[in-house]
């Protein structure tokens, strides 16, 4: 039986977002790095609010952007992988940190 997880992405503290005509730019002030996101990535980034789970994000993408679930999940996972490697987003398993009871 697989363990149920509630993965929640949260932007790192020193990261600022600038939304422009197309796409967005993330500025990681602590590392002096700039990350340019395409339009879809910019939209998905804004759902990383420290409260919404990956499952909820995928569900919303499927319902509103008419994406197939496996594509939506693949996209979100890939974005989290890239941004996680760049240390601009952290993913917390809220199921494992919930207080007992």
């Amino acid at each position, binding site marked *: 039986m697989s363990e149920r997880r509630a993965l929640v992405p949260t932007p790192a503290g020193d990261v*600022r977002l*600038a939304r*422009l*005509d*197309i*796409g*967005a*730019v993330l*500025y990681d*002030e602590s*590392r*002096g*790095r*700039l*990350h*340019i*996101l*395409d*339009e*879809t*990535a910019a*939209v*998905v980034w*804004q*759902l990383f*609010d420290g*409260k*919404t789970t990956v499952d*909820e*994000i995928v569900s*919303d*993408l499927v*319902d*509103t*952007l*008419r*994406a197939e679930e496996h*594509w*939506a999940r693949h*996209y979100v996972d*890939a*974005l989290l992988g*890239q*941004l996680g490697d*760049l240390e601009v987003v952290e993913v917390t398993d809220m199921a494992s940190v919930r207080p007992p009871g």
Partner: protein
Amino acid sequence: MDRQTRRQFLRRAAAAGVVIGGLPAVRTFDLPAYGWVGSPPIRSGGTTPTNDPVQAVGDPSDPPFASEQDGGAGSSALAVPTRAVSPASDSSTDPRVLGAELGRTGAQGSLPFTGGDPRRAVALGIGGIVTGTAMTRGLQSHRRGPAVASEPRLGHPVDRIDGVLWRYETVARAAFGFTYRFRATDPAVGALVEDLVRAFPRVPEHAHSWLSLRDRGSREPRFASYLDDDVLLATSDQSLAIAAMLSAIDRAGVASIVGDRLVLHAAAVTAPSGTVLLLGPSGAGKTTMTAALVRSGFGYIADEIVAFDHGETTPQPYHKAISLKGSSRWLFPDLRNALGTASDAGSGQLWHVPIDAIRSGARSEGAPITMIVELRYDAAAVTTLEPMAGRDALASIVANCFSGDRLDGESFSSASTLAGAAPAYRLVFSDLVPACRLVHDAIASAGRAGTP
């Protein structure tokens, strides 16, 4: 964000054409930490000692102050400007010399721009850019040998300060928050340098710093420039000593406002139809393009340093002299006669030219930026002006920030405001004339589009 808000947000994104497809595209780059102003930096041709200035520029046994010889308007003290302005040495009409110059610059891999014989450039219509009279009264005075300052000087024409016989002093001027007075041992060179800084605003009375240019006569290295007690450069080439001083003004000017304003390594020009911010790394052609646009009618707001109050899109004027690189100066042959000083001997190879010599009355106040242009010179490219995404414009702005060790969040927000305020274009060019025309056409078009 609650579920309903999330879905509304996503539905708007869907209506705007956002789809899930493929993999996310994330481009990352590290921002340079800018601590240097100038294009290019002064590197060779002298030394940059940082210890005691008097000891640094000569034999330690030298007396701490100069003899009457020191700084005298000696016969060769004006070697550089005299070489530059002398009709006898003016090679602009000698195609062999021009050809040699072109060959040399091409070999260096720098910016030949139009390429080929400059006479061809004139035939192609660049005459509006490269011709014209630019001699100024102030510069005329340099030909008269020991010059009289063309502006009132504070202090005394002949005075001993710090044990050195300074024969020329200027009024106090400001480069942003940095205020300074300039002095020289050679009055003719002093007047020449004053022409280069004359466009900076005057400030009453007190200045923070002295910029000093000293001719040590027969001792080597003969010339030295100072910022207060620090030697900027001690060298046998006076033009390099002057260039180091001009660069020091830029650096100190930036240092005086970094953190308080958004400060870019860029240029800005303005026309009735709009104001253009020119971006690009050193060597991209910003200064040459600025000179060409000013020559063709644009007003000059700033070169090298463009500063904005946070959250604002109106650049503040910074009317420094134009410093043309050797590889582009043949496009402005008339400026030989308006030459402030040349740095031929060093790697800089700069012509420092007062903006009024490019076009009289070109100095302009700031106006809101209406077009952002990122420049890139490519000798093999067809000259094109293509729209650029705002995110790329922002990246370019941020990459060209003078930010000290690290760009602060407020500056990033200001850069975002700027990037979002004006359409951006990428200008790839191999030829200056069509590049100028494209900028003219685009700003005129943007101006018409913005007219109710």
